[in-house]
């Protein structure tokens, strides 16, 4: 497996505020598709609130807590936030 460093200049393609999900992901949370350069689209939770986001917004990724694992540990992943 090869490793690549991704260009983190993302554009928000679509998003939603989730109110019904498996219990290890406490609701509500925002999730969305972020388009990165070179034809890559990532699904990730947001690090900001629903009302702060718009389709087409410039975003980037930071680490953030997204819920719990099946075993009950804290689960961290990349979350998207607005970028200047």
């Amino acid at each position, binding site marked *: 497996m090869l490793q690549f460093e991704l260009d983190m200049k993302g554009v928000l393609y679509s998003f939603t505020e989730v109110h019904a999900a498996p219990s290890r*992901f406490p609701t509500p949370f925002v999730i969305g598709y972020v388009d990165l350069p070179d034809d890559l689209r990532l699904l990730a939770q947001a690090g900001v609130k629903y009302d702060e986001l718009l389709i087409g917004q410039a975003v980037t990724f930071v680490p953030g807590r997204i819920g719990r694992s099946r075993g009950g540990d804290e689960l961290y992943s990349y979350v998207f936030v607005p970028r200047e």
Partner: protein
Amino acid sequence: MAHVVEIAGAGMVSFGQFPERSVEDMGASAVLAALSDAELGRAEIREVFCGSSFSGSLVGQRILRELGMTGLPITNVENACSSGGTAVREAVAAIVSERVDTALVIGVDKLTRFGGGTIPLEETDLEAGQGMPMPALYAMRAQRYMNETGATLEHLARVVVKAHLNGIHNPNAQFRNPVSIDQVLASRPISKPLTLFMCCPTGDGAAALVLRRRRGKGRAVVIRASTLQSGFSHSGYRDLGWSELVNRTASLAYEEAALGPSSIDVAEVHDAFAIAELMYYEALGFCERGDGPRLFESGETLVTGRIPVNPGGGLLCRGHPVGATGVAQICESVWQLRGVAGPNQVQNPRTALTQVTGGGISGFDHGACTVHILGIE
């Protein structure tokens, strides 16, 4: 395909929340109803196909044991929401290949076993691992679609109102109550902008069909097309506002049946979420891309319109016990073509189309889609 396969019988149980009914019990009731409709005895069935997504191992065998129909070739089929449709396609192929003359198809699922909440997605799936439940995918489609076509939340609400008006007259529907636009918009959010009433309910149910090699020239409902496709997997920019998979599957069905969308007199469309109905109008060719809201506003998809869609209330009101839906859509289409659909009878339909589209897995439009085209001769 020559019109080799006829639908000799159709039967289903009401869909709803039935904690006291087992998968075996519902399946057996549906089978007996279909056999009775076909005026055939159990011994006439030579092969069975059973579509189900969440009912465990050997569903067909467990159902047929209730009826003493054991020892037959039984194929259990799983393809998410397209399980029932895929089971029908397998039965059609078995008859067309002359392996068998008369086959039974069952579709069944019991979603109340999960005790409510969203359908569980595969834990190893990358997007499920980020917390994505199924309604979120449709909600994001809705956001894009509204962004691109000018469709509004009110359009979505009116789709639900139409479904409920149709569901009132469907004795097998889970919901038979009218709702207002305000009630739809005010129901609790599931995944913004989708509210509870914009989502099909969880429930239980079963449906069955008896398929037979066409013989003689008597009046019969025949299968003109039976197509199945899977979604393409993308890691990149796929178009969420357009259902490529449904369009591809439907195009193959029209080609197989040698007719176009304008020949369809009544359609059962996979309205698991209100947004899906508008998108699938376009993907099925009932209107141009982007014109879904306009087609809806024209009234042409009402029971009295040019292309009635979901005259029995669709998934939104009939319900969506996943494996049963594809088979139930065909049952309701059979009754429409025969002219026995009751108050929601479409005037003189000759050709019907049914479409189910299933599954949420990362990077796919959806996992599977089946489209059937039926005719009456």
